[in-house]
């Protein structure tokens, strides 16, 4: 259920602007990997390259190679929708479909996959909501609009929607940055549980969070505005936060820049 991701010399552009350059790293199955670094260093860009969401923007393109269990996801024969189904994504701001009920939100991905049977959908919805630690809070109002939940609940709803299609990898782009501390803790707890099943990559600007939830940490940085973001250091989280090998990493985690 979880797969290894290998990025080799990934470079991504927005039109003529090179946002990240030559990023190479390997993410092991069933681990949580945190991407940290100052804002604008290309964490989101790299993350969106992994499920081919980067190319959705006009003029955006990716070079280099990205494989999932040795299968090139940028191969010309690969169906991009299959890639995205395999690699789910949770966004920075909770984005439930505003016109759909809680239930419909959770099963939206399954419906896209052609699942029609009510019983299957209900079972999957309950399972996903339980995994997202949301079931008890919403089980009595599954027919109500998803947008009526609190921010933290909405984000867990989005996580439920993402994991309902049973992806191999879950990407999270600052999933807690729009949430209060209690909701943030709820989602961090959730990540521990999800790690059993999925490979998780999370972008965060919160270093305590990176230290708490992740096994491995990748530190990105840029020289100056306008330069492409680069991977400075990638190691076990403990090592990065206690004894980084790069001066830049140390400056960043001790708060001297960024």
């Amino acid at each position: 259920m979880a797969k290894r991701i290998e990025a080799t010399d990934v470079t991504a552009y927005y039109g003529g602007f090179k946002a990240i350059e030559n990023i190479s790293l390997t993410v092991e199955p069933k681990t949580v990997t945190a991407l940290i670094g100052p804002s604008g260093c290309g964490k989101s860009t790299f993350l969106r390259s992994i499920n081919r969401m980067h190319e959705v923007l006009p003029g955006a393109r990716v070079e280099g190679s990205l494989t999932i269990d040795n299968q090139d996801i940028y191969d010309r024969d690969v169906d991009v929708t299959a890639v995205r189904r395999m690699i789910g994504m949770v966004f920075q701001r909770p984005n439930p479909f505003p016109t759909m009920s809680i239930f419909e939100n959770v099963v939206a991905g399954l419906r896209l996959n052609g699942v029609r049977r009510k019983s299957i959908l209900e079972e999957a919805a309950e399972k996903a909501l339980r995994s997202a630690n949301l079931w008890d809070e919403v089980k009595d109002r599954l027919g109500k609009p998803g947008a009526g939940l609190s921010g933290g609940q909405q984000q867990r709803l989005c996580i439920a929607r993402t994991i309902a299609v049973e992806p191999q990898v879950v990407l999270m782009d600052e999933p807690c940055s729009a949430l209060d501390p209690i909701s943030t803790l709820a989602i961090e707890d959730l990540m521990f549980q999800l790690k059993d099943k999925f490979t998780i990559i999370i972008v965060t600007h919160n270093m305590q969070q990176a230290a708490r939830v992740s096994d491995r940490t990748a530190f990105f940085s840029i020289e100056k505005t306008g330069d492409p973001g680069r991977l400075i250091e990638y190691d076990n989280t403990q090592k990065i936060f206690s004894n980084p090998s790069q001066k830049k990493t140390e400056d960043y985690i001790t708060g001297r820049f960024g």
Partner: protein
Amino acid sequence: MGDTPHRSAHAGTGGTRVATSHEWPAGASARVAEPSGTPGMPDNGLGGGGGLPRARAFGAERAFRGLTLAAGTTVLVVIAAIAIFLIAKAVPALRANSESFWTFEGWFPNDDPPKFGIGALAFGTVLTALLALLMAVPVALGIALYLSHYAPRRLGNGLGFLIDLLAAVPSVVFGLWGRDYFAQPVADLSAWLNRYFGWIPIFGDGPYGNSILLGSVVLAIMVLPIVTSLSREVFRQTPTANEEAALALGATRWEMVRTAVLPYGRPGVIAAVMLGLGRALGETIALALTLGSTYAISFNILQSGGNSIAANIANRFAEANDTGRGALIASGLVLFAITLIVNITARAIIYRRREFTESAA
């Protein structure tokens, strides 16, 4: 938030934009009032030593409120005056009518005794408008989706501009074009439809010429730009976050449209269709030129004939005597009632799912 493209700035306000545009002046008034406290200027009371600044006795805010109130009242008064005038004119003519106003198929208000009935006219009005929407709406939604979500941005803007231009063509031009150039192709089409689909009652026998079909096709072309350009705006307002959510779940572009764009745009599209319907129901000169001006209720949309309330008013007003004018005014009131019912129905449809659309905003 570099990862979220510019359109997300509109997030949430899109779906109801058409319906709530009348609320804008409130925001505008706030903005008008702002410059009174010019930044950088030492403001009374704020910079100085003592107390809070006192409320202004007379400011732009108050003046503006008075102005808007006056404008609102004027509108109400004018509407009431018009209504009283129309009813006062219509009632004597209706009294003088020697046939049933609702069922009589004919229009002879100048005769003695006067005979006129609204049935055929109301029927023609509703039928042409519905047929026009039936033809225009699917095409309009297709074009709108293409422009907002498929065409490259440049091409989309260019085509959108052309469509808006189409909306600016005066209706008499459409009417003349329909009567002089389009009638023949439609007559040929009618003959063809009758030959192969004649077993369907609406595709009956000729003679073919100025028919309900011709009128509704011309109407369809006229409402197409309204429905297209409003729907396109509505579709464009879909929050990027929702489109990306659908794509990230593995949706194809069309599935993304179905999951995120169409449901989000639904209230706006309904509003657009209702505006189109309003235009179709009230359209006067184009139908006066392209319908056959008969007074019979017939579902045969190919045969020469057909009429509508507005077209009848345009065609018969010049020759009308006092009773004749009263009769036409009475027909106008019926048209008003039909339009009102349509609008109320539309609102009911939009508000039925308010719980969902509101929490979206």
